[in-house]
């Protein structure tokens, strides 16, 4: 249906192809921006005139006790998250297993550790010596629980095992999101259940679980502050110790807050790198 040269067009529809599009005034945007700037200025003025000695914030931001604290926070967050992911993967595989005993154990674990507050779990691990004065493997090795359950180990077990319960649900959702045809194709080339999970299902599940795991990791960085109740020297614990001595409560809480924000901000680009790594083959041009 190519239009022939003699085709007659109706009148009254002028050619608009030469006209430029005029800029629209976006009044809503300008008003909103103005209101927000005013609110921020008011807030800044309030804090500047409030009872905060900002020089203390600057001075204590980099004192050794605070720096040690933030290092301990990061170490604990990484270690507990690693433990949580390992447990989460194992428990998710157990929950999707054809074996009813494994499924029940995995379900029970999730129920128990998601159903109790993490601070209670931390206190239980820290006070394990009250239940079992001596722990160990009979005939091989044993030790006094008081010496063994250091703040570090108690915090690692408490946070890591609790995290495992949440991570297992994230991992399970990720594994369920992979098409069942993938599992059948893996079986068809002779893979056993576990090899199909490891080689085919989990790598594809990772792409789905990284955003929620990033969320979980951010929560974990902040959840380490709970370990201050069992004397683990993370950054909030250090800040508290300093303000007990110098009474600069708000200044030191701001210092801790700045560090938490810094660590969490550093995690976002890390997550983007991981997401790119696991998106292999799933975007059209990643050759």
């Amino acid at each position, binding site marked *: 249906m190519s239009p022939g040269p003699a085709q007659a067009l109706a009148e009254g529809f002028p050619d608009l192809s030469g006209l430029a599009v005029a800029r629209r005034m976006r009044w809503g945007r300008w008003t909103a921006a103005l209101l927000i700037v005013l609110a921020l200025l008011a807030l800044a003025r309030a804090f500047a005139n409030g009872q905060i000695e900002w020089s203390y914030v600057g001075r204590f931001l980099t004192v050794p006790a605070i720096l040690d604290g933030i290092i301990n926070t990061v170490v604990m967050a990484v270690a507990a998250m690693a433990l949580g992911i390992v447990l989460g993967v194992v428990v998710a595989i157990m929950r999707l297993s054809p074996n009813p005993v494994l499924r029940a154990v995995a379900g029970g674990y999730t129920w128990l550790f998601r159903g109790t507050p993490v601070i209670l779990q931390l206190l239980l691990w820290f006070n394990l010596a009250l239940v079992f004065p001596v722990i160990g493997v009979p005939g091989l090795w044993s030790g006094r629980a008081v010496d063994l359950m250091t703040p570090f180990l108690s915090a690692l077990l408490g946070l890591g095992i609790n995290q495992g319960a949440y991570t297992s649900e994230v991992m399970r959702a990720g594994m369920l999101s992979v098409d069942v045809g993938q599992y059948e194709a893996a079986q068809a080339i*002779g893979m056993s259940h576990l090899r199909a999970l490891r080689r085919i299902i989990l790598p594809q599940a990772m792409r789905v679980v990284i955003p929620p795991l990033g969320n979980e990791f951010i929560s974990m960085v902040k959840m380490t502050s709970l370990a201050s109740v069992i004397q683990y020297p993370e950054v909030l614990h250090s800040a508290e110790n300093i303000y007990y001595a110098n009474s600069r409560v708000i200044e030191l809480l701001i210092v801790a807050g700045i560090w938490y924000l810094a660590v969490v901000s550093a995690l976002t680009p890390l997550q983007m790198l991981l997401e790119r790594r696991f998106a292999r*083959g*799933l975007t059209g041009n990643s050759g």
Partner: protein
Amino acid sequence: MIQPFVAIRNVSKAFGKFQALQNVSLDVQAGQVLCLIGASGSGKTTLLRCVNQLVRIDRGGIWLDGDLLGMRVQNGRLHVLNDAEIARQRLSTGMVFQRFNLFPHMTALQNVAEGPVQVQRRKAGEVKAEALELLARVGLADKAANYPSQLSGGQQQRVAIARALAMRPKLMLFDEPTSALDPELVGEVLAVMKELARSHMTMIVVTHELGFAREVADRVVYMDAGRIVEEGPPGQVLSAPNEARTKAFLSAVLA
């Protein structure tokens, strides 16, 4: 009489209340191409999946090259084989799926090499050479480094055929291999399958491509409601069927 390569005897399978297969018996000789035709829900795909043990049969038995699949007879009772034994039995069959099911996180080459390296534990270098040969055989030598998302449906299905062949199977199963393809891509997949048939691979093909069945099949089986209604050479089943149900199906498909 020669021993059939695949022997299916009195196989029944139900999914809940739905009887997918009822007392199906069938022989496939080595080197033969058998096409299963029938309406959707007639049980042809289920039968194919039983041969690859993606579906466990309720009653009956399937023998592949003389081996009973999925079970062992001991003291007059049937014992179900474990996961590893079933995985080992699957090594002698290759399967091609309707929806390709390529592994999206691996390149075409990695898809083809995955089974031989990970499952059969063959040397990576040797497998890679063979995988490239297989990709060349299905006409995709230049797509080895591409991910499935970068390939057309027809190309993906040809990679899937190469992936199945890489395991050096004795029997190839095709589950409606062209049903998910755009019409212009069907031919390239059928061409690969015809080449495979000429090389005397034993094949069971569930298909709606009656032209392919007429040209390539040694025998055609028409199924309806979980039973085999009619079977015979393609000239007879497709051109001069005896059963009224076969005639009705063929006229509906060809209409």
